[in-house]
């Protein structure tokens, strides 16, 4: 019974609050082949689109997880219900992650189909970069209680990567393009910490 309710809530949420974001992420993925070729790329070349463009969908998908309740009165109504609000947000986050992983997965498979030298590590690497960009956005939005600031922090993180390059060390999200996969596990760790931090900040504030 309870699980049926949660399923209803998640579906309804996805339909009314996040469908636009899912579609936008899909559009970014579909538009990628127009910007660059994905045929017959070697491992490093294949990493470029997977690190510089595809991870942007992380910002689109993860940053707005708390957005529907940015309005305080909506938040009060939702929080006054039996089902824990944190649980709802967690489910939304998982849902967004599922969409993110399947989009990136499909894209990587398509690249493979087109003859590029992509491996499973390309998939995890791209997903790690996407997750960390999204987690930065999520954290920024939750702390400031303002989605624009959330997007801003994620975009700035992206720009910082562009400008400072491997000076960023373990926080460098374009490492795969220069052949290094070692940074990715740190990115995953950082996403987990930021996400946990976001939930902690939110629950303390409430």
């Amino acid at each position, binding site marked *: *019974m*309870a699980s*049926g*309710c*949660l399923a*209803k*809530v998640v579906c*309804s*949420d996805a339909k*009314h*609050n996040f469908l636009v974001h899912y579609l936008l992420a899909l559009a970014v993925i579909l538009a990628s082949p127009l910007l660059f070729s994905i045929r017959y790329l070697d491992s490093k070349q294949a990493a470029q689109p997977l690190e510089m463009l595809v991870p942007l969908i992380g910002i689109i998908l993860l940053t707005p997880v708390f957005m*529907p309740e940015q*309005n305080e*009165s*909506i938040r*009060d*109504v*939702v*929080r*006054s*219900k*039996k*089902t*824990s609000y944190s649980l*709802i947000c967690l489910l939304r986050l998982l849902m967004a992650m599922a969409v993110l992983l399947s989009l990136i997965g499909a894209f990587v498979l398509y690249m493979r189909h087109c003859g590029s030298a992509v491996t499973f590590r390309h998939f995890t690497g791209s997903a790690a970069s996407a997750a960390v960009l999204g987690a930065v956005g999520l954290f920024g939005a939750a702390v400031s209680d303002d989605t624009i600031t959330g997007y801003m922090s994620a975009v700035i993180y992206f720009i910082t990567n562009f400008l400072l390059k491997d000076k960023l060390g373990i926080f460098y999200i374009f490492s795969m393009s220069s052949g290094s996969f070692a940074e990715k596990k740190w990115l995953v760790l950082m996403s987990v910490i930021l996400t946990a931090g976001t939930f902690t900040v939110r629950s303390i504030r*409430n």
Partner: protein
Amino acid sequence: MNDCIIIKNVDKFYGKKQALSDISLTIEKGMFGLLGRNGAGKTTLMKTLAALHKKNSGEITVCGVPVENASEIRAMTGYLPQEFSMYPNMRTDEALDYLGALSGMPSKLRKERVESLLKRVNLTEHRRKKVKELSGGMKRRLGIAQAIIHDPKVLIVDEPTAGLDPEERIRFRNLLCELAEDRIVLLSTHIVGDVEATCEKIAVMDSGRILWKGTVSELIENARGHVYTANVEKRFLPQLKKEYIVTGMLAQNDYTTVRIVSDPEPDLPNTVQTEPDLEGAYMYCLHSSGCDVTGGEDI
């Protein structure tokens, strides 16, 4: 004792600012009114009762359940915030269904309740409208419907009638009264008329404290002998407002009849002691507790 809210010595701080101080109340089945000015702490108290805010000290039990047990508390309370809103893109019936699901109701029951509630709050013909397309009154009705969808034992409504037109307001009050027949309904307002029309028991709050608690008639009785009417010339009015609490004015040809709340008998011509009304009683209650309620500057 199992169907009442018991509040004992509750304190709540926002940073250094004390929002609730030493609140103790027992609220039983029926309609209970919280009366107070804006910023008196009514909303904070209600949010604390709905387990949306944590208190700093003291004890609260709702129907025997301590308020710390948030999930259980939320399962048996319905809450309507001061300014109800919902995801703007959802349709009215979807929003209700969604919030019912959040309350953990099985889908069959939800369907029935959504139907009957839409009918009860007169929204059946607007059920396909999106929330953002509803008028203020319709939104408020959707708000009350979502608060009672899971048939809660306790209903908490924060200033439910603010901004409604008189007709809507009366309908809303009647609905609340019906609901109060078999549950606790806690209502906050700064509009005395609402309390007068609906509540048996009330508490008056100001700056985080409970100034007074009891029945409406007790509050009125309390003010007996402190409400006066007088006829004054218009030019004295500004002066009068500075010195006394003026609760009503009726302009005649060359003088004005004023209602005054005052401890000692005011030193004015033609002063007559009159029967206190709830508004005057409320003002007297604030005044006698040391709140500054004089009219202040003339605008």
